[in-house]
C-alpha cells in the first residue's frame, strides 16, 4: 500500500458514489468496511464519532467521506474525498435529467411523470419514517413531527428555520423537565 492516499481515496470513494442506490444510507456499511477494516484510516469508534458529526451538521450525512479524507490527509484529503464521492453520481444524474427534460411535452413523458408521482409521495413519507427511526426518540418525536406537518399544511410557506428553532426549543425544554 505505497499508493498516495489521495489516489486511494479516488479508488475507494468513486465506485461508492455509483453504488449508493436508494440514497447515501446504503454506502455507510461498505464505507465503514473500507475505512476501518481494509485501509485502517480511522478506528471503529472514531468512525462512529465522525458519522454522528456528519449527521448533526448541515448538508448531506454522506459528508462523512469528507471527514475521513480530512482526518487522513488534511484539506487536500477532504477535497479529494468529497469530489470523488459526489462527482460520478452527479454526472450520471445530469445525463438523465438532460435527456428527461428534452422530451418534456411528449405523451409518454407525462405518463411517466404522472406514474412516478404516487411513488415519490410514498418515498417521501418513507424518508420521514427513516429519519425518525435513526433519531430513536419515541412517541413524543412522532407527535412533534405530526404537529409540524399539520402546521405546514396550514401555513405552507412557514420558514423552515422557525419550524426547526421551535422544534429544538421544545425538545430542550422537555428534556430539561424530564431530566
Amino acid at each position, binding site marked *: 500500500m505505497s499508493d498516495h492516499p489521495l489516489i486511494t481515496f479516488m479508488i475507494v470513494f468513486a465506485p461508492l458514489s455509483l453504488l449508493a442506490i436508494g440514497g447515501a444510507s446504503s454506502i455507510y456499511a461498505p464505507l465503514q468496511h473500507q475505512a476501518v477494516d481494509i485501509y485502517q484510516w480511522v478506528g471503529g469508534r472514531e468512525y462512529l464519532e465522525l458519522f454522528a458529526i456528519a449527521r448533526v451538521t448541515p448538508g*448531506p450525512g454522506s459528508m462523512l467521506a469528507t471527514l475521513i479524507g480530512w482526518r487522513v490527509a488534511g484539506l487536500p484529503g477532504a477535497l479529494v474525498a468529497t469530489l470523488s464521492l459526489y462527482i460520478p453520481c452527479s454526472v450520471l*444524474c445530469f445525463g438523465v435529467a438532460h435527456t428527461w427534460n428534452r422530451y418534456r411535452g411528449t405523451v409518454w413523458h407525462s405518463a411517466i411523470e404522472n*406514474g412516478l408521482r404516487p*411513488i415519490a409521495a410514498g418515498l417521501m413519507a418513507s424518508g420521514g419514517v427513516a429519519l425518525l427511526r435513526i433519531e430513536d426518540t419515541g412517541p413524543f418525536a412522532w407527535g412533534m413531527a405530526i404537529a409540524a406537518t399539520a402546521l405546514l399544511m396550514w401555513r405552507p410557506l412557514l420558514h423552515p428555520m422557525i419550524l426547526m428553532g421551535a*422544534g429544538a426549543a421544545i425538545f430542550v425544554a422537555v428534556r430539561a423537565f424530564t431530566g
Partner: protein
Amino acid sequence: MSIEKETAITPRSEFAQPVSLWSLYKLFFGVGLMSFGGGLTAWFHREVVLVRRWMTDDEFFSGYSLAQVLPGVNSTNMAVYIGQHVRGAIGSVVALSALLSGPFVVVIAAASAYRYLLEIPGFQAAMAGIATAAVGMLFHLAIRSARGSFRHGPSLLVLVATFVSVGLLQWPLLPVILVLAPLSIAVSWVRKDAPKDAQKDAHE
C-alpha cells in the same frame, strides 16, 4: 381534469428572464448551510416551486423520483436536476458546488470542536428537535405530492404500496421501484390516452 388539460397545453414553465447563476448559487448555498437534520428535499421544494416558481410540482416530483432511483446522494442529485432544469450544465455545477461548499467547511469545523459541542447543555436534545421538524417537512411534502392520487384508486394503491414496503417493512428501495414504477406508469398511460382519443374523435 382541468388541471391535466392545463399541464398538457402549457409548455414547460418558460422563464420571463433566465435565472441568474448568482441567485442559483445563493439559494443552494443557503439551503446547504441551514439544512440541519435532513429534509433537504422539502426545503428545495419550498424555495424552487413555492417561492421562486422555477418549476412546477410535476417537474419537481418527477425529478425527485429520478433522484431516488439513480445511484448517489438524493439531495445532491436533486440539486443537479434543479440546476439542469434552470440553467443547463453550468446550472448543475453551480447548484452542486453551492450546496456542498458551506457544509464542507462546517463539517470540518464541527469535527475539530466536537468534544466541546457535546458539553453544551441541551445540544443533543436540540438536534433531535430539529430532526422532528425536518420530518414534518417531509411528511407535508408527501401529502402535497399525494393530492392527485387520492382521487384515483390505482395511484393511491401505488402510493400505499410504496410506503408500506419501503417505509414500514424496510424492503430495499430499488426492487420495489422497479416493480411499482412500470405498473404505475402503465396505469397513467392508459388513463391519459383515453380522453385524448375521445376528443380527437369528436373533432373529426
